[in-house]
């Protein structure tokens, strides 16, 4: 997206340009305003947190609410649970999607296209449709109210498999031929030649999984029962329910803390995340 435009078009665009930038600025203010308010309010003292006029910039930061939120809920446990669940899902998805994507892209076997169609079709199945039987399966497996109940069903990924297949199809074929001439087995060709080249593709799968499952609310709400197994979003909603509107800065401090990992991904992996999110549109 270059900023260069032919001089002629520039002149025809100019009159509306100020208006366009104004519209964009208003939209950006409406988008970022609530987040800035959340940050500033979390840095007010609990007793001042619902005072008006509101604050959008934290001019006199007060960290009482950040201390308080650790006393109100077991923040450490929530963070550990969320991190465990999210990381294990991300790693599991990266590994299984790379393997399956490689098979669909580069191995020859019977029924490949039919099987791939079935995998793609599962993308259309919303999680809400399968949640009741999944809940029962989890109970049957004796995994009720464990973190594994959240992790295991989330690992097989149709979208990740699709992305990895595309990625492997985009890699040159010559390496496979060279590896075969050297007498490498299909596994060695994958492990030593193609898998290292596909790390950027796996990063997309991992970052997408992280972003989605870190923020996930519906499945944890159903599949976890005791508070020891709550993840962050569930813990924060429970805290909000318990505190009511008494000291909103404490809840907001929790909200801000829960955003930090997503913010890190946003800063360092925004491009990857953007590409991954929109990749589904071009299938």
């Amino acid at each position, binding site marked *: 997206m270059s*900023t260069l435009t*032919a001089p*002629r078009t520039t002149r025809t665009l100019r009159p*509306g*340009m100020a208006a366009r*930038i104004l*519209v*964009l600025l208003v*939209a*950006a203010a*409406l*988008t*970022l305003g*609530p987040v800035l*308010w*959340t940050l500033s*309010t979390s840095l007010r003292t609990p007793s001042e947190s619902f*005072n*008006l006029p509101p604050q959008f910039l934290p001019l006199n930061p007060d960290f009482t609410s950040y201390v308080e939120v650790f006393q109100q809920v077991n923040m450490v446990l929530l963070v550990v649970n969320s991190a465990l669940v999210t990381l294990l899902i991300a790693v599991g998805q990266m*590994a*299984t999607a790379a*393997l*399956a994507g490689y098979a669909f892209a*580069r*191995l*020859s*076997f019977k029924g490949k*296209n039919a*099987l*791939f169609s079935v995998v793609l079709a*599962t993308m*259309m199945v919303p999680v*809400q*449709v*399968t*949640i*009741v*039987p999944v809940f*029962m*399966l989890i109970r049957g497996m004796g995994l009720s109210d464990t973190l594994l109940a959240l992790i295991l*069903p989330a690992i*097989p990924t149709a979208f990740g498999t699709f992305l990895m297949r595309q990625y492997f199809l985009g890699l040159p*074929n010559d390496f496979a031929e060279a590896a*075969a001439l050297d007498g490498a*087995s*299909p596994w060695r060709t994958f492990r030593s030649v193609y898998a290292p080249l596909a790390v950027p593709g796996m990063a997309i799968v991992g970052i997408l999984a992280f972003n989605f499952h*870190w923020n996930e*609310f519906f499945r944890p709400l*159903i599949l976890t029962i005791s508070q020891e197994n709550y993840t962050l*979003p*569930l813990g924060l*909603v429970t805290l909000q329910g318990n505190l009511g509107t008494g000291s909103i800065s404490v809840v*907001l401090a929790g909200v801000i803390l*829960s955003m930090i990992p*997503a913010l890190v*991904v946003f800063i360092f992996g925004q491009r990857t995340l*953007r590409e991954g*999110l*929109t990749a589904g*549109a071009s299938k």
Partner: protein
Amino acid sequence: MSTPTLKNTTGTTTPAPPTRSSAAARRQRSLAERLIAPLFLAPTVVGMAIFTIVPILGSILLAFFRWDIISAPEFVGFSNFADIVNDPTVRVSFLNTIVFVVVAVTLQLGIAMALAVAIQGRMPNWLRVFFRSAFFFPLILSAASVSIFMGYLFNEQFGVVNWMLSLIGIPAVPWLTTSGGAAAVVVLVYVWQNFGFSFLLFIGGLASIPRELHEASALDGATGWRQFVNVTLPLLSPTVLVASVMAIVSALQIFDQPYVLTRGGPGDSTRTAVMVIFESAFQQLEFGRASAIGLVLMMLIMAITALQFRLSRRFVFYQ
């Protein structure tokens, strides 16, 4: 999705006439591939069989039974499906969901399109990056967290929204305690978080339109709105279609926002289809009814996806 060219990528064909020894090596290799392929596929395919295929079949079966997990399941025919029409709560929830989808998706696509077109003009690159990052930002947040702080912002007494309205002389709006207000908040909060996704799709689509077409139409005297309607929009139609389908499919599944903001209230005014699935199954222990509602929702999603392929053949203008 048939991919006939796929086989060529596995190295079973080469342009040069093969020598005997390399042909034998290749045969051996393809045998090895056939033997090892199941191991590559197993984690994904077995996992999907257990956690997606079996549950769908289970859901279909369960939809024809009344079952509370404790007593024996009782076959009830289509009565769980009839509930969707007859039970007032379920019926209202489906109607709410459909109204929500229409309003939220229209707003989401309209806002995203306007902003995507606005960002095309001449401006410093850092400003363009800033806008794009700002619109993208809500996508990385959890809908539950967003609903928590939005709930405070829309609070009737101390909420910032009503405080701002009071500055221009508008009396406090009971956002979350009236049916209309609560429904509006759910739509606004949802659109606030999701318009950035459609925006990303639209700027991708706009970037793929050749600049010469705009220049040529500008030479012909087409500017502004006319250029948008006659040149940009037809060329963008594939993106618009994909963006609409993706937006509709995800809006049909709305749950987090109304659950956190209103728990479906006041009354049933913000209860959605997925909330009824959740409540039927895990609060009323009506697992059969929950499954039936889930299946109807899935059929809606599949119908819309199928419609996408139909429409894309007929109306979408491909270059």
